[in-house]
């Protein structure tokens, strides 16, 4: 058939389709109406599986491109900081742990560290080692939940089951040593609640042996997965300087190449005793954020291994009877122990007046606890500087100008925990 000029209106329009970029086409066809400049405001959340909690976002879109994001938080605000002011120092620990619900050991250490600073409590080395072991297990656990749910957001459902398989093992370890799987209330002012039971270290050794190969399995599944790489590489990068001005710390900052980690920079507890590396990224895109957290889990396993090898003998809690409860058996024979026990249980410990800010490296960045004491047995102010809350400010800057699908991936890589944001 010979080519004839198009007769119908439909044929004429069909010929006008070009392969020029979508933006150009829009401008050509709708120039007079200016529709390419039209903005659409989309409400996202608070109940949406991809928001990792009850986060609400008001997203302004230009076509499929994110123009601006306004996070709206507060849906799970429970007034924990206010509640803490009405409880004696040692009864604050359980509520503090429930702020960032994936980092309960970190929450309690930040708070306990501030109280110990004020009261000048000396913590036995064994307790410090047990704390570090539990915190690093907690870090792996938190990162596993992050990895599983983030992979879910990218469409990889099997990763979720593998991550939760290992997470269960960590929760089993917590259950054995502390009696609880989450929110364990294991850390106490002056040490830890009780020594680890017989057989726990062997069980942990088995876990430390298995975990690196599990991490390698995750790497095999994801590191060369074309879909994951295309979704993560080169998307939503933000440089270290902007991140710092927005107060962002933790894996997000390290992904942009700034090796700031409080465990190395200002070692607290007994982190100075261990040999570990700080994984850093180069450009600070979503892939770096992913890779830094993956590498961090390897380093955490190393720390646990070293802490387990070097776990010293000795008391697991301070013997200062003004701070920690006396052992149960002493109550039957010692009048003084009975009095101390009574005073601590009824009134709680008194902390000298003053203010302290105790920063530690949580799984999401600098987790600092500010405690003000007025000399009574209840704190006058407890404030948690939660990394999720501060890091959320960078979200809009990261996702500006990217596709809405990349915004979802960025939110996953940001790893916000709404319990920590809203407190």
């Amino acid at each position, binding site marked *: 058939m010979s080519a004839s000029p198009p007769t119908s209106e439909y044929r004429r329009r069909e010929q006008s389709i070009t392969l020029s970029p979508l933006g150009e086409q829009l401008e050509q066809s709708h120039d007079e109406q200016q529709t390419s400049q039209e903005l659409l405001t989309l409400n996202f959340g608070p109940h949406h599986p991809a928001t990792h909690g009850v986060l609400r976002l008001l997203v302004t879109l230009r076509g499929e491109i994110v123009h601006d994001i306004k996070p709206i938080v507060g849906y799970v605000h429970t007034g924990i900081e206010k509640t803490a002011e009405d409880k004696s120092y040692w009864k604050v620990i359980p509520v503090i742990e429930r702020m960032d619900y994936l980092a309960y050991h970190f929450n309690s250490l930040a708070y306990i560290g501030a109280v110990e600073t004020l009261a000048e409590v000396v913590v036995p080395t064994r307790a410090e080692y047990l704390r570090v072991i539990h915190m690093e297990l907690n870090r792996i656990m938190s990162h596993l939940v992050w990895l599983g749910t983030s992979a879910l957001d990218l469409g990889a459902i099997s990763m979720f089951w593998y991550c939760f398989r290992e997470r269960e093992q960590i929760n089993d370890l917590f259950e054995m040593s502390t009696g609880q799987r989450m929110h364990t209330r294991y850390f106490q002012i002056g040490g830890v609640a009780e020594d680890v039971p017989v057989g726990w270290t062997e069980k942990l050794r088995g876990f430390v042996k298995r975990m690196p190969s599990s991490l390698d399995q995750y790497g095999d599944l994801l590191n060369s997965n074309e879909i994951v790489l295309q979704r993560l590489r080169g998307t939503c990068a933000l440089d270290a300087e902007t991140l710092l001005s927005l107060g962002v710390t933790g894996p997000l900052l390290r992904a942009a190449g700034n090796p700031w980690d409080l465990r190395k920079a200002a070692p607290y507890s007994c982190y100075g005793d261990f040999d570990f590396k700080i994984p850093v990224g180069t450009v600070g895109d979503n892939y770096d954020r992913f890779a830094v957290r993956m590498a961090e889990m390897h380093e955490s396993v190393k720390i646990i291994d070293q802490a387990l090898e070097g776990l010293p003998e000795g008391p697991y809690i301070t013997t200062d009877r003004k701070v920690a409860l006396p052992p149960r058996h002493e109550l039957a024979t010692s009048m003084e122990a009975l009095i101390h026990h009574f005073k601590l249980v009824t009134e709680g410990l008194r902390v000298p007046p003053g203010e302290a800010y105790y920063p530690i490296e949580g799984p999401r960045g600098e987790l600092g606890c500010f405690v003000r004491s007025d000399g009574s047995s209840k704190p006058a102010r407890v404030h948690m500087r939660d990394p999720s809350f*501060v890091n959320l400010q960078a979200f809009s800057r990261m996702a500006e100008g990217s596709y809405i699908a990349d915004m979802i991936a960025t939110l996953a890589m940001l790893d916000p925990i709404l319990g920590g944001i809203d407190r």
Partner: protein
Amino acid sequence: MPDATALELIRQELGDAVLDTSFFRERATLEVSPQSIRAVLGHLRVKGYAHMASLHGVDYYPHEPRLGVLYELLNMSRVDRISVKLRVPSDAPEVDSVTPDSAEHGGWPTANFQEREVFDMFGVVFRGHPDLRRILMPEDYEGHPQRRDFPIGGEPVIFTYNESPILEGAE
């Protein structure tokens, strides 16, 4: 932390802006006048304390001036922290916001959410803040719950069975 001597040197550099210094449990605190907060933070930024780790509020009830705002600054190259504190009375709780850039001093974008939280919880008004709204409490909430004279509890919990009497009673 700068030690006690270094803290006094900083005080001399800042002159009248500093009302008091304290060095307690290795924690260096500068108490400054509310009017000078931007200048003090700008000066400390030049000295290397360029990262604002945290900003939070405190209620010193029953002492006056009641409300305090604390700025935890961090010098990353020397791994050194200093905290700056200011206090404002509860009947005129106003202080300049440090979030936006001003003519003389650069801004601290990280303070945005945290100043909103202090406003929400303590009622401190940050002049010049780009978006000073409540952040954690509902927007129509009355009162500033983190103040020490704000009672705990006493608020009826709304369930389906008592929804209408509570809401009608509030009107």
